[in-house]
């Protein structure tokens, strides 16, 4: 069991739920990813997704796409994200998931070079959102050999039988998209009850749910059904706002994590 699997396993035993924030590697500045990971752990995150910045992220809204562009402009490369993760790996216990476009994974050696480097850098799992099931066999297999979890995304547009296949093809957890569309905050809490229940009939794997989840209340609504809530744009925006107004982005990220964790059951809210 790697860190991600262990986190879900432990949570299940005590009927707890997980908070999985997303941050953009190299944002707000190169060198900050390591300290941010530690801050998210202090705030109550169990697993963190690190987005490797890509110039053309078609599944991302303006907040995350903007952060990625700024990170790239500031000189962030996939290798620098790997180095930053590795630099704090021994000091943190949280699971790390690399969220990366297949464009980058392919250029950096694909199932061999890229996945091996991800593992060496202390990552525990991989999500390649634009690598659909049909194209993913070789990556999935190699992740298994390397001890990396590999999670498929299940969309509201995914038919039932396909969702079952996606769950079977995943390890660690399945990523249920709370909505159609791109990443970005929404004001209303998503209603995922039915879709989670349908997916549960197809898999025992933990279900993490994300896209548009921005507040403790959203987290509460989601983890009433799913095993984990993923918070991306809201986290990135909080970090950006802090950096832009002379505040400490690390403190801001920790504070938001605490706020969001208040939506987990058993946490004094």
């Amino acid at each position, binding site marked *: 069991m790697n860190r991600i699997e262990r986190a879900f396993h432990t949570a299940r035993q005590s009927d707890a739920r997980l908070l999985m924030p997303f941050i953009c590697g190299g944002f707000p500045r190169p060198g900050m990813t390591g300290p941010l990971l530690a801050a998210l752990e202090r705030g109550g995150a169990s697993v963190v997704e690190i987005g490797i910045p890509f110039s*053309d992220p078609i599944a991302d809204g303006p907040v995350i796409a903007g952060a990625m562009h700024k990170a790239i402009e500031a000189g962030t*490369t996939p290798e620098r994200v790997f180095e930053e993760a590795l630099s704090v790996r021994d000091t943190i216990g949280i699971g790390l998931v690399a969220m990366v476009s297949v464009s980058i994974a392919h250029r950096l050696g694909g199932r061999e070079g890229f996945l091996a480097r991800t593992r060496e850098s202390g990552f525990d799992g991989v999500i390649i959102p634009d690598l659909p099931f049909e*194209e993913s066999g070789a990556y999935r297999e190699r992740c298994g050999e390397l001890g990396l979890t590999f999670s498929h*995304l299940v*969309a509201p547009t995914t038919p039932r039988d396909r969702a079952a296949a996606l769950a079977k093809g995943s390890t660690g957890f399945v990523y249920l998209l709370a909505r159609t*569309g*791109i990443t970005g905050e929404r004001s209303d809490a998503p209603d995922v009850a039915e879709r989670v229940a349908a997916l549960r009939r197809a898999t025992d794997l933990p279900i993490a749910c994300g896209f548009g989840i921005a507040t403790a209340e959203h987290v509460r609504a989601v983890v009433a059904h799913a095993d984990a809530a993923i918070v991306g744009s809201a986290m990135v925006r909080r970090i950006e706002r802090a950096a832009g107004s002379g505040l400490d982005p690390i403190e801001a990220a920790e504070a938001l994590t605490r706020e969001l964790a208040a939506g987990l059951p058993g946490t004094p809210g």
Partner: protein
Amino acid sequence: MTTAPAPAPAPRISDVPDERGRFGPYGGSYVPETLVAALRQLDEVYRRVSRDERFWEELRELERTFTGRPTPLYRADRLTAHARSAGGRGHGATVWLKREDLAHTGAHKINNTLGQALLTQRMNKGRVIAETGAGQHGVATATAAARFGFQCDVYMGAEDARRQRLNVVRMKALGARVVEVESGSRTLKDATNEAMRDWMESVEHTHYILGSVVGPHPFPLIVRDLQSIIGRETKAQCLRTLGRLPDAVVACVGGGSNAAGIFYPFVEDEKVRLVGVEAGGRSNEPGQHAAPLAFGAPGILHGSLSYVLQDEHGQTAPVHSCSAGLDYPGVGPEHSFWKDAGRVTYAVADDRQALDAFTLLARTEGIIPALETAHAIAHAVRLAGTMNDDQHLVVNCSGRGDKDVEEAARLLGW
């Protein structure tokens, strides 16, 4: 008695893509899960209608009465004379123009959008979106949307909206909403990103009319098939007027749809030389051109594996061309397949050569070409000058240049 299995027939180069959208190693479908169901539906609907004679009849009728097909194959005598003298030998091939500039809306793009509009209708969707560079695909989509009564939003880079202003006005007149994209390089790649993002939200009731032979399967297949009318007509016209096939066919390559459309019906005719012309921009330096087949490497962009201009970290590289329709870092997967197979050769014409060809065609033949097309003209003149007098070269005159007159005036200092 056992019989040895018959050796599998050598796969024909035209027999692509396979079920998964592969052209050899290229193509495929690299998209977020949210879009998978829509691409499946499109694939299924297209498979069904491609066997449905009524679909093609309906399209042919539109092409005849609305687009004005067949477009002429025109013998360009004064351009031929120029090519022969410029070649330095006084000899050279006869140059013919396949007049896609005479198709309704002024470019080949309408061939694709009418076909995809019929598909949209068959999928019961009431809204279409498109990306556009030169604005020709945007205008062609807006035109089809008006003709079929669809709501239409077109994404266009802000830089392209500036340099192709005429087409912005045309799209608005046709009732489309033009969304200017300010991100990245503010050109075609960024417009494509935004169109895909829109589709991620709207996929259940919106069809994305992709404008070239790029993107995830089945777009490269559908767009090639719809544009192949150009090559089929050219072939029939050559057989009728020359009694034989041409010796060479030349087309410009942005995403590669006008080129794929005129090449595809000839790919099994090995004696016909096929030449694609990419945008050489200012120079061969990274960031100064838009020629992925010449200077790129296989990589994934906008849903398919193909030659692409990327940096060593996988980030899409900046590109430049004076022509908004060629100013794109990727190219259709079938072109990558043809390049590797050696079936099509790819050349480069730079900004200067394209601008020269723009005025050359205007002054020798009275035809003002699009700046995209001018790249093909530039190389065709060069190539014709190396050929023999009894040979024939067809250039795909993919579009007219009205949209480019202001940008050309600026670049030429008029």
